[in-house]
């Protein structure tokens, strides 16, 4: 959580104007830093890093003399929409003119609350941003009251102006900003500032247009990969093909013959923790990305590939299965008691496999670093600068206050940029190159082969039946190199347990949009469907019968699972998709629902699938989401569309292959993802609800999608899918 200590700072801009600093990002640097003038052409940009009178992150909100309002983003933009959603929350309470709102990207951040993931940005900063907006509005009103020598109660604010009640007299925020006086009791004022009633919202709840799209469509939205600095070199790294292998020797003579190649240097790998490791490698420093890529291809290296080269996938899966059968495991959840098999008339048990998955963000991993011995600077698209700084401090011995990280919006994050390894790697390259300022860019092949993959999971669900009713539900999960099991077991079966086992896989793993909810949503919702069919119950009706209204279920998580909201999403999607409607032969509907507890959001999907002429086709996806109070309905729909298409790619084409520890996929020809001519019709519905705050959105759409599609395939063909991707499961004869 944010520390509220020393969270407020108000200063006046050199050129006039108000700067409201929310110094909740506790350990921020506070000196004025200026970017080199020609980093990225900023002329004509709607948003940017800074303008005249540049200030670092602690200057959270600026109102400039022309009335324009600049909000520094407190979370990282990677396409999920925080620059619009978070901004609109602040603008609402500030009574700002939406047209005058601009976004400032986090310039230099070493903080305690920046990590962006788990669909938590909006819910974490909702309260803070409202108070910030309301507090700034109060200060502006007080400034106007002083100007007019009236009581502040006689004034009100609307659309960037302060007015006097019953009069046409008004002052624009830009005129007032320089006249703000910060009261001595500002902290108390901040904490107790009155907030608007929901019924008075003018911006929240509207489909306001994105603040970043105007920059994107002209090609000027700033990504780290576009960075250009004076004296900047370009680097590409030849990495050990196997995780944790070692470099024995290399020969750079051919690489150095390539025009543009300047240096070839050795990178010593670093182990960060048991699951993440920067590989040994050879970095080629050149005068363009292209020359660096060419140089990398010309480097000859000898490796000691190590133990991970001996991992064979079939053996690995067999080992995972054995562990599922064994008694080992850590209990994550226990509700009720352990039921003896003798008490059951029937036991239904199935095992589901969710593979390793690639991210393939459109912007390949990259970072620009400048190692200066006692200090360093970096330019990077990230989901967590804190992790980068912590790793630089730990492994390069540079004190945190001497680390400057310039954070850019990302061309896709999806959990990949939650890992900090690529960023630290670029600093190692700069160091190895003798302190050159170096932009290190992954080729697409690097980005796929050295991806921090979604961990492989085997899930086994077992249900005990007594007199036609489910009495026990046990879930066991074996997962590669990742310690978490969600154990989100929301169906109201009296006795429930979740157990987890971590095994060593062949490679590096990382967060992947919706994280474990993908595998566990897939397995849980396929399984409940199988049980419904075994018991001759309608899949929707069976689910609803196990979701009693009013239930709140505790999974030992920050939030309790709200069954009313889960049920609401399921009922809405069933109604909108016309669940149970007549389908043509070889066509089927499938349903699934899943909570996403990290963000306390709930999603449900009905898929319509056909299996005609040996081709499985997803024709339509109807989806629903309960994300609490809705900030921006259109952005919620965008995120649901994106999450669904993300999941469909994984259902159809996901997974990976490795031989002797080496990932075999390399680019979009052999790591296919959904293309525009493959998408189904997608129809998204947002649940009405009376939640008093917003909840998570970005990772709600995917998890229910897997099972809905697989259950629809069953309805169309009679074939159960217990392993993804379906391209590997279904033969031509379906």
């Amino acid at each position, binding site marked *: 959580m944010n520390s509220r200590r020393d969270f407020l700072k108000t200063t006046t801009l050199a050129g006039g104007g108000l700067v409201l600093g929310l110094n909740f990002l506790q350990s921020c640097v506070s000196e004025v830093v200026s970017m080199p003038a020609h980093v990225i052409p900023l002329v004509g940009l709607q948003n940017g890093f800074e303008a005249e009178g540049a200030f670092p992150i602690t200057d959270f909100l600026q109102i400039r003399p022309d009335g324009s309002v600049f909000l520094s983003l407190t979370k990282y933009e990677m396409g999920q929409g925080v620059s619009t959603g978070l901004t609109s929350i602040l603008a609402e309470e500030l009574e700002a003119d939406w047209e005058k709102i601009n976004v400032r990207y986090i310039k230099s951040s070493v903080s305690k609350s920046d990590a962006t993931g788990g669909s938590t940005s909006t819910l974490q900063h909702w309260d803070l941003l409202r108070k910030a907006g309301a507090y700034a509005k109060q200060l502006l009103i007080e400034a106007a009251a002083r100007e007019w020598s009236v009581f502040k109660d006689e004034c009100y604010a609307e659309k960037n102006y302060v007015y006097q009640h019953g009069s046409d007299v008004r002052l624009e925020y830009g005129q007032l900003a320089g006249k703000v006086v910060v009261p001595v009791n500002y902290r108390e004022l901040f904490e107790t500032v009155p907030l608007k009633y929901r019924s008075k919202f003018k911006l929240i709840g509207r489909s306001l247009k994105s603040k970043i799209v105007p920059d994107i469509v002209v090609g000027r939205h700033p990504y780290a990969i576009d960075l250009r600095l004076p004296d900047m070199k370009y680097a590409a790294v030849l990495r050990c093909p196997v995780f944790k292998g070692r470099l024995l020797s290399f020969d750079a003579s051919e690489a150095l013959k*390539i025009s543009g190649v300047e240096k070839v240097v050795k990178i010593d790998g670093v182990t960060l923790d048991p699951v993440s490791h920067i590989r040994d490698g050879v970095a080629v420093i050149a*005068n363009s990305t292209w020359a660096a890529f060419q140089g990398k291809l010309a480097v000859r290296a000898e490796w000691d590939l190590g133990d991970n080269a001996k991992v064979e996938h079939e053996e690995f899966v067999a080992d995972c299965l054995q562990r599922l059968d064994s008694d080992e495991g850590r209990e994550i959840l226990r509700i009720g008691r352990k039921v003896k098999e003798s008490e059951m008339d029937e036991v239904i048990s199935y095992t589901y496999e969710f593979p390793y998955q690639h991210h393939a963000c459109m912007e390949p991993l990259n970072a620009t670093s400048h190692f200066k011995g006692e200090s360093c600077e970096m330019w990077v698209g990230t989901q967590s600068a804190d992790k980068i700084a912590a790793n630089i401090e730990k492994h390069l011995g540079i004190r945190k206050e001497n680390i400057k990280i310039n954070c850019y919006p990302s061309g896709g994050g999806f959990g990949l940029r939650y890992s900090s390894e690529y960023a630290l790697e670029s600093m190692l390259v700069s160091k190895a190159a003798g302190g050159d300022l170096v932009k290190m860019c992954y080729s697409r092949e690097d980005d796929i082969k050295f991806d921090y993959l979604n961990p492989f999971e085997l899930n086994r669900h077992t249900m005990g039946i007594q007199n036609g009713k489910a009495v026990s539900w046990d879930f066991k999960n074996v997962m590669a190199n990742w310690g978490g099991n969600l154990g989100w077991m929301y169906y109201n079966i009296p006795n429930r347990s979740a157990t987890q086992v971590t095994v060593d896989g062949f490679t590096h793993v990382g967060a992947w949009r919706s994280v474990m909810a993908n595998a566990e949503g897939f397995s849980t919702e396929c399984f409940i469907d199988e049980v419904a069919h075994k018991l001759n119950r309608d899949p929707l009706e069976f689910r609803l019968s196990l979701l009693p209204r009013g239930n709140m279920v505790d999974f030992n998580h920050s939030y309790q699972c709200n069954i009313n909201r889960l049920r609401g999403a399921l009922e809405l999607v069933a109604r909108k998709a016309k669940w149970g409607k007549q389908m043509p032969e070889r066509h089927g509907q499938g349903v699934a629902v899943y909570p996403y507890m990290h963000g306390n959001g709930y999603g449900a999907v009905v898929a319509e699938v056909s299996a005609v002429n040996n081709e499985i086709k997803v024709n339509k996806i109807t989806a629903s989401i309960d994300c609490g109070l809705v900030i921006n309905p259109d952005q919620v729909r965008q*995120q649901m569309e994106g999450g669904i298409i993300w999941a469909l790619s994984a259902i159809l084409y996901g997974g990976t292959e490795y031989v002797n520890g080496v990932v075999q996929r390399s680019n979009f020809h052999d790591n296919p993802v959904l293309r525009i001519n493959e998408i189904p019709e997608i129809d998204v519905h947002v649940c009405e609800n009376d939640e008093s705050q917003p909840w998570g959105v970005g990772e709600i759409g995917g998890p229910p999608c897997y099972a809905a599609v697989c259950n629809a395939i069953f309805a169309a063909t009679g074939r159960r899918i217990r392993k993804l991707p379906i391209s590997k499961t279904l033969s031509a004869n379906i």
Partner: protein
Amino acid sequence: MSQPDASILKEKILNMATIRLLVNGTSYEKEMDPGIPLLWALRDILGLTGTKFGCGIAQCGACTVLIEGKAVRSCSITSESATGKDIQTIEGVEATPYRSLQQAWIEEQVPQCGYCQSGQIMNAIGLLKSNPQPTDEEILSAMAGNICRCGTYPRILKAIKSILDNPSKSNNI
């Protein structure tokens, strides 16, 4: 093989030439390796970074530009082969009637992370130049070479169609 720390003497094959690139109506003359893909000449040499690197093998479309009005993957042609030809990149679109397509992208709120969208827009312009009234099928087929990981496809289709459905907008093109 030599040891990693051995100092390595450079023995460079110099392969440079003056290449003239005509981009968005501006002529640039720069020394470069004539074999450098147009993508990297645009980005690293001319500083026109609106054109994006996605895959390097003409599989994703992020680097799409127009050459003589046709959509081309700039990662897969050399700058030498583009010499003297009319190259149009995302940076130049605002100055053309196709700005209405950029406006449609805003209206339909197409982009999420935005990284692939320069290529999507350039590819859509290429389509409309060769086929001003494409059917849905033709749009899907023409746009199938452009990957988006955020899943903005439904909105890309809508944005292109909105231009076709609106005579005042399409007449401007």
